[in-house]
């Protein structure tokens, strides 16, 4: 039955030249859920995320977030509205420290501008202090309290992913989009990640994640949307989705293990 979710995609279309990446896509993400977006390679998952976050402009359909239409908005405005994201190929600010990376995430929730910067004291100093404290707090929240001053590109891969998550959290999102957060992680790191995702959800943030690791998906998701050839072929709770014959057919022969 059609519900008004936190994020509603209706009839989403995205084409690149002659190639249709996403077509007639419907998806409903409920508030407070951990919602997974899965599908074989090339099914349009990352494209969908990129359209939601404004990197690509949709060619048709609508993206409603809390009732607001996101399509046509520029990425920074979408983030300011409360939708944050991480990237499949980690996009940290490589030469800056982990702390600076997370502090930059505070940008949409702070306001010191050019003229404010010129005055060393008062509101500017308070906001600086606040930004710094929040950033430390978030690094601790993702389990990395001690690497604040390390240069981002010198950090191990798993830590970089977590810093990217902390940075996204700094923007105070209501919806967090994660593009393959577990990529390249071993079993122990994946378990830690599951714990982190749940703690994020417990803070009241809805999660939409793209993942290939089916163990992770089945363990942590409240609902799953399955894509194939750019459109949705199933949406529901993990148990139902894993038994769906269309889903099994889509993955048949593929490397994914739908347990």
């Amino acid at each position, binding site marked *: 039955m059609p519900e008004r979710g936190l994020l509603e995609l209706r009839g989403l279309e995205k084409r690149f030249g002659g190639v249709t990446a996403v077509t007639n896509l419907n998806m409903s993400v409920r508030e407070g859920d951990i919602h997974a977006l899965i599908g074989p390679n090339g099914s349009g998952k990352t494209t969908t*995320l990129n359209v939601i976050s404004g990197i690509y402009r949709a060619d048709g359909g609508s993206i409603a977030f809390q009732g607001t239409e996101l399509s046509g908005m520029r990425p920074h405005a979408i983030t300011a509205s409360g939708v944050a994201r991480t990237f*499949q190929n980690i996009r940290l600010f490589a030469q800056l420290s982990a702390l600076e990376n997370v502090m930059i995430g505070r940008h949409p929730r702070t306001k010191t501008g050019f003229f404010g910067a010129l005055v060393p004291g008062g509101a500017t100093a308070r906001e600086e202090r606040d930004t710094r404290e929040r950033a430390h707090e978030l690094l601790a929240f993702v389990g990395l309290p001690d690497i604040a001053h390390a240069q981002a590109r010198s950090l191990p891969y798993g830590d970089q992913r977590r810093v990217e998550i902390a940075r996204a959290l700094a923007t105070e999102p209501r919806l967090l989009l994660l593009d393959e957060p577990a990529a390249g992680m071993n079993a122990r790191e994946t378990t830690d990640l599951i714990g982190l995702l749940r703690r994020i959800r417990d803070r009241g943030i809805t999660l939409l994640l793209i993942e290939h690791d089916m163990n992770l998906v089945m363990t942590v998701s409240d609902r799953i949307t399955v894509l194939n050839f750019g459109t949705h072929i199933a949406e529901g709770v993990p148990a139902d989705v894993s038994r769906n014959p269309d889903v099994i057919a889509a993955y048949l022969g593929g490397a994914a293990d739908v347990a």
Partner: protein
Amino acid sequence: MPFDPVANVQLLINGLAIGSIYALVALGFVLIYNAVGVVNFAQGDFVMLPSYVAISFLVPQVAVFGTMMHWQLPVIVAYAVVLVLMVGFGLLFNLIAYHPLRDRGWMPVVISTIGVSIFLRNFAQLTWGSQPLGFPSLFSAETIDFSGLHVRPQDILIIAVTAVLIAFQYFLFERTSLGKQMRATAQDRTTARLLGIRVSRIVAITFVYSVLLGTISGFLVSPIFSVTKEMGGLIALKAFAASIVGGFGSIPGAIIGGLAIGVVETFGGFYVSAAYTDAIAFVILIAVLLFRPQGLFGERVAEKA
């Protein structure tokens, strides 16, 4: 102003001639860009340097490092010697200015090529002095007259040689193994390497080829203008503009862009304003960048998220 067909044909020939020079320099520049993703700010100096060296061998008396040299060689020999020397220069350029920086992104390489340009200009001043030098023409006559037209033979030579070079380029790229390797390397270096192409060698060859295009441009254009250490500067910048107008990375685009800018600039200089002639190329450039950045034949490549 009444339409004067004779004047317009002469302007057209002038325009195509200078446009051919822009096209050749743009071609050299695009080849390097396609191969290694780098904007070469020294491209114009690839025109200037061989011109000076050629003068040293062509003119009976030339001051080199302050002392007079008497090295006059027959024209063909002089041209051949300079070409050979410039091959060596191209290899040196690749080795020193590009190779150490190949993994560092575009900006360090741009700055390095700027350094090369500064070095070459100062080297030229040191070696041959600050006075403009004349480059001997192959023709004794200043103009040829027929059908009421006064045509500069050098212009005809420029257009003819450029046409030959373009045909050669086409043949090289479409019909020879080397050319196909160069195209493959320009398209996707990793895959080219996996296919067994020796990429660093192809890159070196591309640099040398580009330098030789500049050398021939120098031989063609220097008899018309005198040779100074600054001559490469404006030519290079207009050639850049040409390659953008034609579509960054497109070879036919570089050629057509060069010809177009040469013609528009020549007509514009005559009919609109002689003082702002040099601005015309850049006004076109800025307009293209703002309204159709992919130029005539280029493709925009979007960043992958």
